[in-house]
């Protein structure tokens, strides 16, 4: 049976191979059936149908989305955890970067300027923040240039990540994929955390006030929850087997 199925193109086998094998097991094959399968296999090579490629593409997309969903959940959890154990930050950064890359580009394979900005800005933020992490590990809190310390580099990166996440969330909100409500949570959380963090980091205010601290921590937790929620939504979204309405 498998030899007959192997006559078909790989894309065809991926889509129909299993059920076709099951059918061949159900029937007693006559010489006519063998010839029929041979002709059909040649036909499948000559005339591939969109359903085969569409189903494969969608399955791939679903698998990819699932992985990015896990990355988002990891990133969100670690981002919240960072406020308790700061060594978790690199995990949060990498998780969120992967999630941003996948979940911003996957829906509809859009390649708009805002979609790119929603990835590139936080990606740059993550890169800068990781440089800050390395500098802190190497130099502790010694000044780099003037009053600029490694902590400022890390904070600059985190602020870039938050600002980029706002762009990502704005780009995601109009679409149901991967989810409006989680995107709204990311948006509000990122704005609140940014607004709370920036004045403290750069000493625009003499002492951290309660509202700023509340915005920083509350926003960060909401931001993390938004990513966990978005990841969960992306994982739960079922694959659509066929979306081909080719006429």
């Amino acid at each position, binding site marked *: 049976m498998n030899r007959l199925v192997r006559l078909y193109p790989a894309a065809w086998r991926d889509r129909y191979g299993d*059920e076709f*094998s099951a059918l061949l097991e159900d*029937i007693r094959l006559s010489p006519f059936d063998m010839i029929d399968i041979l002709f059909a296999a040649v036909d499948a090579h000559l005339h591939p149908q969109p359903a085969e490629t569409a189903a494969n593409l969608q399955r791939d997309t679903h698998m990819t989305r699932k992985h990015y969903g896990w990355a988002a959940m990891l990133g969100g959890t670690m981002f919240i955890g960072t406020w308790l154990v700061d060594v978790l930050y690199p995990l949060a950064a990498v998780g969120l970067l992967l999630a941003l890359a996948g979940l911003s580009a996957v829906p509809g394979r859009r390649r708009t300027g805002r979609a790119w900005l929603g990835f590139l800005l936080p990606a740059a933020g993550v890169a800068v923040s990781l440089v800050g992490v390395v500098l802190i590990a190497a130099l502790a809190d010694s000044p780099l240039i003037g009053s600029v310390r490694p902590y400022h580099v890390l904070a600059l990166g985190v602020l870039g990540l938050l600002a980029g996440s706002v762009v990502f969330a704005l780009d995601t909100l109009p679409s149901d994929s991967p989810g409006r409500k989680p995107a709204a949570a990311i948006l509000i959380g990122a704005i609140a955390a940014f607004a709370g963090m920036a004045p403290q980091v750069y000493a625009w205010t003499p002492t951290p006030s309660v509202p700023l601290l509340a915005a920083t921590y509350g926003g960060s937790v909401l931001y993390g929850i938004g990513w966990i929620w978005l990841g969960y939504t992306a994982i739960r979204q079922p694959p659509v087997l*066929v979306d081909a309405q080719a006429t």
Partner: protein
Amino acid sequence: VNPSTSDLGRMAEPALLILISLTAGPRHGYAIMTDVEQMTGEALGPGTLYAALSRLESRGLIEAMPPVERRRPYRLTALGEAAVEEQLHALEKVARVGLKRLRAGAE
């Protein structure tokens, strides 16, 4: 002929038989084969069956359902229902005209 099935060429007839079979409800490949054999008295080859199924699926006339023990049922879409109805009406009209002419020739 419905535009969505007009380009099926030699697969047009097997495709129509599959659509007719699915009007009774979702069926997997083997059930379609046996149903078509009962309807027409002729067996549909497994290669032809899947060649027609993939074309119908690509045109959105049928859709696959989750597999049950490797056997995947298919069902008509709204587009498929409209297509099979239109084709059967067209065939009915042709059959009526043909039979009328036969009877007129016999008299």
